[in-house]
């Protein structure tokens, strides 16, 4: 266990150094996730005109929370893995006694920490430009939001890394993520809070992984969500377990194929 912890801390510090070497890129990545602010503008106007059950300020807070959750949960492993397979880096990773998955996890976690100051800066700027949206979440809401954001990250990572493994057959799995991204945009709450969905549709969507990526943690952060949190956590954990199991099966088969076809 100690050896495993030491390995992970070594991976984390190396990848943190790696991420901070790309400071300028980190600002751009943080800014590239500014879609919620654009959507906020559109929905704010609509909410002010009434009819959505949200006030303009609630809409602004929701999309700000969406921005925060996206900063905490962004996953890019599928593009990284594609590149690693194509450029032969995966072969080098396979020569070392640590599963490459831990490298990708460490890279994502380190990037999160390295990105934090820039995300905070953007949020501060937003509050400066739009004072009515300023709010301090309750400690319990914040804690719950962080728990669900962590689950969201784990689920999104497990799902995307599983799709990424198909690069062991096709050398380019990122097109699969393109397909998944459409569902992600519509069903996760990234474009609109799921309250705008009809009740039956929302209830059905709650059994899929998508609302847990953004909507649940963002609503928790911006003032509470009307869902059974125990059930939400269980659904989330169920999907994580499913994708982790699937991931290991696909990994073993993919590796066999990779080592048969040329590493």
């Amino acid at each position, binding site marked *: 266990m100690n050896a495993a912890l030491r390995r992970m801390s*070594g991976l984390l*510090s*190396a990848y943190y150094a790696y991420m901070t070497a790309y400071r300028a890129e980190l600002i751009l990545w943080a800014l590239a996730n500014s879609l919620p602010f654009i959507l906020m503008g559109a929905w704010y106007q609509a909410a002010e005109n009434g009819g959505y059950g949200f006030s303009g300020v609630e809409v602004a807070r929701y999309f700000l929370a969406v921005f925060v959750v996206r900063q905490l949960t962004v996953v890019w492993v599928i593009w990284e893995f594609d590149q690693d397979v194509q450029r032969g880096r995966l*072969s080098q990773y396979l020569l070392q006694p640590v599963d490459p998955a831990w490298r990708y996890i460490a890279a994502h976690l380190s990037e999160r920490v390295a990105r934090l100051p820039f995300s905070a800066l953007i949020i501060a700027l937003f509050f400066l430009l739009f004072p009515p949206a300023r709010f301090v979440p309750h400690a319990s809401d914040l804690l719950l939001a962080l728990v669900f954001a962590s689950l969201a990250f784990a689920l999104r990572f497990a799902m995307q890394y599983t799709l990424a493994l198909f690069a062991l057959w096709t050398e380019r799995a990122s097109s699969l993520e393109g397909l998944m991204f459409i569902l992600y945009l519509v069903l996760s709450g990234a474009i609109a809070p799921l309250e705008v969905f009809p009740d039956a549709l929302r209830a059905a969507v709650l059994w899929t992984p998508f609302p847990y990526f953004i909507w649940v943690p963002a609503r928790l952060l911006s003032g509470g969500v009307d869902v059974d949190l125990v059930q939400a956590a269980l659904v989330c954990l169920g999907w994580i377990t499913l994708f982790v199991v699937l991931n290991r099966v696909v990994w073993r088969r993919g590796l066999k194929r990779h*080592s*048969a076809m040329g590493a």
Partner: protein
Amino acid sequence: MSDAGTPIIEATGLTKSFTVAQKDPGLAGALRHFFRRRTKEIRAVTEVSFTIRPGEVVGFLGANGAGKTTTLKMLTGLLHPSAGSCAVGGWQPFQRTRDFLQAITLVMGNKQQLMWDLPTVDTLKLNAAIYGVSDAEYRARVDELAAMLELSDKLTQPVRKLSLGERMKAELLAALLHGPKVLFLDEPTLGLDVNAQVAVRHFLKRYNAMTGATILMTSHYMADITALCPRVLVIHEGALVHDGGLDELMRRFGARRELKIELARAVERGALDALGEVLSVEGSVARIAVEPAQLVSVVGRALAELPVSDLTVHDPPIEEVVGRVIGKSQRANHAETGT
């Protein structure tokens, strides 16, 4: 791990085939390829067998595409053999057990494991964590290896700022940090200038003498092989065509030396032909292939009879040595089959 008597690397009938997609050129070819994919089986390595004892340094020679890298990848567990078997230190490489991975390293001259934008020391710390190297061991090994590689003052510079030679030395340092017992080196001096090549060779020789590590290396530079490898394996079109001492290889296949003569003034072509096989004459510079046994007398004659302003002796290109081995093995095959 094996003792000195038993082989540390063992390949028995090692074979690897790949299925490769075939596509005709142009739009029609692309469409046909989309709807009905044609494939062809390519055999990269055919029934290769050899054993290597602990501490041996063995050169692995062959033209591009001969099957060297494929064999190395099977021995390091990256490729699963299609037939035959191999064992390294008693482990089946393709099972990639932790103990096996701790015991080996693979350095490829055309690939890098160092993190490009970070100093070497960051990759070293990462490797120390991955391989479970203790802090004390880490410091001792880095100090020792960096001193041997004359790299101590370069470890905190970003890798991208290092010269090609320094980068290869840093790659070796990172690859050897965990003290592997078996080193697989694929073209470790590729693209390096002569000084850097000499430094890498010198290091490998000392490392082998100090640690008793086994080394199997491929190279395109004859000087690497003559400096390091008492024994060589030659592979051609996937099959092993020679396994024996380097001296024996040179004796059997009479690798010629290359004499490069710069002349102060033009001479008759006949005067050059008298020295050996004239490979080229460009301006005032002539390249002549000479049998090793005649080298001293030919050099003496050249200096005495020609207006020589400069004279150097080079190793023959590895392709020439391998070409001779291959030529001989093909002639032998044809004789056997009567073709």
